């Protein structure tokens, strides 16, 4: 197993990452640089290539070109070493419908080789935190969307990953759980972990993330710390305005449908 190089200050880097679906380049030469210990928001309009990028980074899709290093390891040469160090909450949540919440955590713990005591204490903490203890014996198929999201997040956190990939973690989550998850992610990053998340809720990203990358039509159009992006815009714009400028959805695209009179 290749050990990650501790000298590298980046949790994740890609060079010219590409993924084609036939003629369509869903991800087109993306160069990502995610520093360790940061909360990195990966933004883009629908169909821009966010989920495809995450799938390439987590090994669910094979890139058509380019290179990647995750926690200093090449995931194409040593996928298992990367998977032992990262936690993922993908778009479809990746859960067995017919396992209970507790069984899902046990499955993940067993796959990661956690001993019984560690598995028990971590599961208890995570289920309590996610307010899922009472429902831990119910099948995941009986969970609400928010509960499914929370158990998927608990499963991603259970092995103690160094890097978390979260695809739309706040979608369908109530305000209380959302606050808990934000606190949890801050604590995770405070202890040296790295979070790479996608979200459509720009207010959350603005408050939560220290670094941002914006993808549009498969290409990375901006990347850096939030502060540097604000400085580059010169007008003290907020993230939403910067984002709209970057993806080309300005005021000229306001619809003129007069029949929408109310």
């Amino acid at each position, binding site marked *: 197993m290749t050990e990650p190089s501790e000298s590298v200050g980046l949790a994740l880097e890609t060079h010219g990452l590409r993924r084609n679906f036939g003629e369509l380049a869903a991800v087109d030469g993306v160069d990502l640089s995610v520093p360790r210990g940061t909360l990195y928001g990966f933004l883009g309009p629908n169909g821009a290539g966010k989920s495809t990028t995450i799938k390439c980074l987590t090994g*669910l899709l094979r890139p058509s070109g380019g290179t990647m290093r995750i926690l200093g390891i090449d995931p194409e040469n040593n996928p298992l070493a990367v998977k032992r160090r990262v936690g993922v909450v993908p778009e479809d949540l990746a859960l*067995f419908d017919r396992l209970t919440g507790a*069984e899902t955590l046990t499955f993940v713990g067993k796959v990661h080789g956690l001993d*019984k005591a560690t598995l028990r204490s971590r599961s208890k903490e995570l289920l309590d935190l996610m307010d899922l*203890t009472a429902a831990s014996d119910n099948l995941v198929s009986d969970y609400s969307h928010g509960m499914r999201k929370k158990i998927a997040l608990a499963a991603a956190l259970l092995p103690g990953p160094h890097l978390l990939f979260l695809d739309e973690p706040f979608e369908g989550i109530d305000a209380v759980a959302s606050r808990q998850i934000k606190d949890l992610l801050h604590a995770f990053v405070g202890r040296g972990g790295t979070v790479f998340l996608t979200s459509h809720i720009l207010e959350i990203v603005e408050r939560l993330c220290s670094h941002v990358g914006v993808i549009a039509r498969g290409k990375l159009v901006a990347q850096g710390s939030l502060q540097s992006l604000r400085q580059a815009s010169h007008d003290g714009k907020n993230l939403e305005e910067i984002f709209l400028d970057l993806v080309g959805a300005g005021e000229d695209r306001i619809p003129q449908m007069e029949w929408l009179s109310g």
Partner: protein
Amino acid sequence: MHTAVVMAWLRWRLLVNLLRPTKRRDALERASRAIQVIAPVIFFLIFIPAVILAGFGGGLAGWYLPQSGNFHSAVFLVLRTILSVEFLLALLAPLLRASQGFTPNVSRFLLLPIPVRDLYVSEVLVAFVNPWVALLAAGSLLLPVGMVLAGELSGACTALAAAAGILVLLTGLETLVSTSASLLFRDRRRAEIATFVLMASLAAASFLPGLLTTFGPVKRRLPDEKKIELKAEQRSPGKSKQPEPPGWSGKPLPLWALAYPPELYARCVALSADHRSGAALLPLAPLLLWASGIHWIGAGLYRRILETPEVSSPRRRGRGVVVPWPRLPGLSDAASAVAVAQVRLVFRSVQGKIQFCILPMVILVMGLLWLRHPKDLAPGGHSLPVGLLLAVAGIFFAMMTLEGTLLNQFAMDRAGLTLEFLSPISDRDMILGKAAAGALLVASRSFPAMLVAALLAPGGSVFLWLSLPFAALALFALMAPLGAILSALLPRPVDPGKITKQNQPHFVASILGMLGNLFAMGPIAGLAAGAVFLLESPALALVFVVLWTGIALLISLSLLRLAERLLAQRRENLALVAQGR
């Protein structure tokens, strides 16, 4: 009317879009999907001539019945049989469809500006698309046309009203049962219990005729009874073929017919054709009452299903945060976790439960039938080692019932497969874990079956009994890699909560799997038969089977490596298919 047209258009588009290719599939996946779509297209092409034929049959019957002839009883026997089958289908088909997860999802229409009454009417009209209703509609509506051609105008009018009555009744009944099933099946746990009970009842009902024939009183026909009948026929030729006299239609309305609408229709048609249109009104009135009553109840239930929110069973209290998760000997943590997860998933599916419970029942019934008439099934009247043969059948059936799991072992995990792919599980651990799960499942199904066989008929050589577990192991050793290879090549998105088609592997994989099963059984059967019948030594049969098991395990190991490489190449596609894309 507008709503009905919109609903018809919606269903048409859904059908057409099913055939459209999607960008995310590779060539193999597109070909495999196309093969699956061909079957309904062929069915549709056969269906149109069948409707025309049914209409022609109805018209011919309508033309024939008002005239004097010899076959009125025969025509009504056919009509009554068809009506009984239709009635049974209207009752059972929606229940079976619901047990497969096909309940009308009407709640999505609630957001549209469509009155509930219109939705109900369009739901009833959709029932006419069902093949059996369409066939009956063609036949029953053209029957009065035949009567008109035969000159029986008033009879044709009552027959037409009766046709409308029975069609409205059957479509209403189907909608009513379908709506009731929706109410019952919309909660997962309740649906699974109902499905299990329904399937177990149907399976038990299918055993009944065999058991009743075997254990019920047997009325044997005397050898010369047939000859006596033939002689009587020769003495008075044509006696039974006199044209039916007027009044052949019998009593206008026996009391029992009130409870059975198909008989009301049959009586009404018979009286109409028998030039007794006035008497035909007597069964027609209750038939129309039945139809209105069923629609009144059906519409009420339909409104209820739309107006009541989704319900769910009470949640179970959490018992603990870590559940027992045994580590299987000889396997890594990861492979063991994959195996245990797979076994749990199968045992939690309705199909898994049914297969586990029914296999010993099948062996028991087969054994009882066989022991009651041992010589019926033995060539030349020799006695056979019934217990051993039943045990062999148990192993074979256990392998066959495992098809759904073994031949679609990756895609059946659905989103869980993505979790496995995201976890640090190597291809080897994945393949070994799935194979171990398959072995546990075969053992869990074949062992109770063998036990039943042994208790029922314990005779036969001990060596042959001892060779059975080895035979099962050898068979599974060859099927496990074949299953993994076919699962990687021909994945099919399934729903473990449903039964039959919804939970079957790809049909090409099924055929290849069945052939594989037969080929894998060949050497075992050949070696055992050779030792017993040629060398007359059951002990040698045990030795041969043990040796073959060793060889099969070696072959299996090399084939599992091939499956491993294939899995590595197909991961991306498997993940997409498992997500239902």
